[in-house]
């Protein structure tokens, strides 16, 4: 209950600095106050005892007929002496009521409170009285002197607490200022040197997050720039082709312009189609179902009419019955793109071999061709969106086919490896699926 309350109080002050300041200063103040109060009270009590003792000593020092004259003025003692018959033989100061009770009492006379000591001495009753306000004033002065050091130390202590808290939190403030002063796209790491060990790991994590955001931001920027370029090129082509059609002088020119315009529209449509496919693969959820990869492979291979048109020998070397969890449409798209890619880059009369078999617990799809292959330096880049090899720039693809393959593979947790085909000399494309 109490802890819960404390937690709520802590959370009510969101700033660490303010929280530390508030609670530390409150604790210091409370401690000083308690210490001061207790000192004050002790001092008062002790002063009381001292004054009483002084009165006793004074009374003891008095013998009948000899009344002290040289008492310290500041004590403001009132002295009266009475005979046993009740006759007042001596009085200094105010008239006090006669008291039969011996010892200390507090009495009221003329509207003031007095501490009265009555003693019997040499057949007389001696009464010594002291004004309580005087006594309290004197005692108070004494008590104040005892709490003076605490009163002086308190602000010093507060300053020290404030300084220590500020200095300790200065690195946090520095990091905050560094971050606040940034432009929206400034994702450079925050400086980690000079940070306390409690904060350094946090800033380290922040920096690594900034690094990841930076990379994905850059990738996105590149994609946008590339997409702009890739979308503008077909648009430019279409515009020019329309102009050429409008300005064509004769029937021959018109036919040529129309053919080119149709090809331009075809290309723009293909690009948009591929972009949509890629976007869908990258944003796809995880609705995975068992897919018979071997059956799917046979079906897609049957669709490859381009191979026949180019006199390419497309063959299935072997297909293990392979069930994996996945999305059949996406996997068909992957197979189509991989096979299409090999067929496109393999010269007419060449060869493309496909095999699907288990290697231990992983299912390996291998597509090999007798085309030019891909240089080792380029093997990573070919999966980038819109990347086209400088050598094959004229082939006129959208540059998205392998990016789609990678997106589908990532969605299925499959690993891609590119190499040089030992059997056919061209590209060897391997795709490893882990077993269900």
């Amino acid at each position, binding site marked *: 209950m109490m802890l819960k309350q404390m937690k709520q109080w802590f959370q009510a002050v969101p700033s660490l600095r303010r929280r530390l300041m508030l609670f530390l200063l409150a604790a210091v103040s409370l401690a000083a106050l308690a210490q001061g109060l207790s000192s004050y009270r002790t001092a008062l009590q002790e002063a009381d005892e001292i004054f009483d003792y002084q009165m006793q000593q004074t009374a003891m020092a008095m013998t009948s007929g000899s009344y002290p004259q040289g008492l310290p003025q500041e004590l403001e003692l009132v002295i009266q002496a009475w005979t046993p018959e009740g006759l007042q033989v001596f009085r200094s100061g105010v008239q006090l009521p006669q008291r039969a009770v011996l010892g200390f009492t507090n009495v009221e006379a003329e509207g003031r409170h007095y501490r009265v000591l009555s003693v019997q001495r040499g057949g007389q009753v001696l009464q010594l009285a002291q004004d309580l306000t005087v006594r309290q004033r004197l005692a108070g002065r004494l008590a104040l002197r005892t709490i003076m050091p605490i009163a002086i130390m308190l602000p010093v202590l507060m300053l020290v607490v404030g300084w220590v808290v500020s200095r300790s939190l200065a690195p946090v403030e520095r990091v905050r200022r560094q971050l606040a002063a940034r432009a929206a796209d400034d994702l450079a790491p925050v400086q980690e040197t000079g940070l306390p060990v409690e904060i350094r790991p946090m800033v380290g994590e922040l920096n690594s997050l900034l690094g990841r955001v930076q990379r994905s931001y850059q990738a996105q920027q590149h994609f946008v720039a590339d997409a702009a*370029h890739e979308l503008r090129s077909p*648009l430019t082509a279409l515009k020019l082709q329309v102009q*050429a059609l409008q300005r064509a002088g004769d029937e021959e020119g018109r036919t040529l312009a129309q053919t080119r315009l149709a090809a331009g529209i075809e290309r723009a449509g293909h690009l948009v189609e591929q972009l949509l496919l890629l976007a869908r693969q990258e944003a796809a959820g995880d609705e995975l179902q068992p897919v018979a990869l071997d059956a799917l492979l046979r079906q897609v291979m049957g669709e490859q009419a381009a191979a026949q048109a180019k006199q390419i020998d497309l063959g299935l070397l072997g297909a293990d019955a392979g069930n994996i969890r996945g999305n059949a449409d996406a996997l068909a798209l992957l197979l189509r793109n991989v096979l299409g890619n090999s067929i496109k880059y393999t010269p007419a009369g060449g060869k493309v071999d496909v095999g699907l078999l288990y290697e231990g617990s992983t299912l390996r799809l291998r597509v090999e061709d007798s085309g030019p292959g891909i240089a080792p330096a380029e093997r990573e880049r070919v999966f980038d969106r819109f990347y086209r090899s400088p050598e094959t720039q004229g082939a006129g693809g959208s540059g998205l086919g392998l990016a789609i393959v990678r997106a589908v593979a990532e969605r299925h947790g499959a690993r891609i490896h590119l190499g040089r085909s030992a059997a056919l000399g061209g590209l060897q494309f391997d795709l490893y699926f882990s077993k269900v």
Partner: protein
Amino acid sequence: MRILLVEDDQMIGEPLLDLLRAEGYAVDWVRDGVLADSALQTQNYDLALLDLGLPKRDGLSVLRALRARKQRLPVLIATARDALPQRIEGLDAGADDYVLKPFELDELLARIRALLRRASGRAEPVYEHLGVSINPATHEAMVDGRPVSLSAREWAVLEPLLARPGLVLSRQQLEEKLYGWKDEISSNAVEVYVHGLRKKLGAELIQNVRGLGYRVPKQ
């Protein structure tokens, strides 16, 4: 006027080549940065139309090399790189103008005319000399206020001569304005067109300078 078209995209290059030729320009088309660089080093062009994203060598690098050789021909960049820093970089690398794809053909042609005009050291859009005036924007020619119809080839011979009166152009230089690489040149083509132009515009307009070539006299 002879133009080098540097464009890797076949679907853009083909219609652009035809459209520029229809305007009467002699056009050579190259599809990568290395070929562009060697074409610029070996041929005399009046203008280069340069794409930036090129295979083998980037357009900006070709441009910088061109300017480093102190070649002064106007360069018009036509690219899809639209970011402000890229446009600034292109112009600062030595380009004279920068158009973004997809561009309007008419605007591109107007910019080409403007650059050619400036390169020949004049600001007025209509060339007027010795009673003959030609307007490159409309392809209209007038002699003493009377319209004359010129063929595209005749135009190609007349324009560079009229652009700089007094300057002698050799037959070979005029042939370069007439034909791209792949065109077949008949040996007496320039003579034929000059003959045609003299008939239409008056015998005194184009002078023979024996052994050197042709010129339009200053006065």
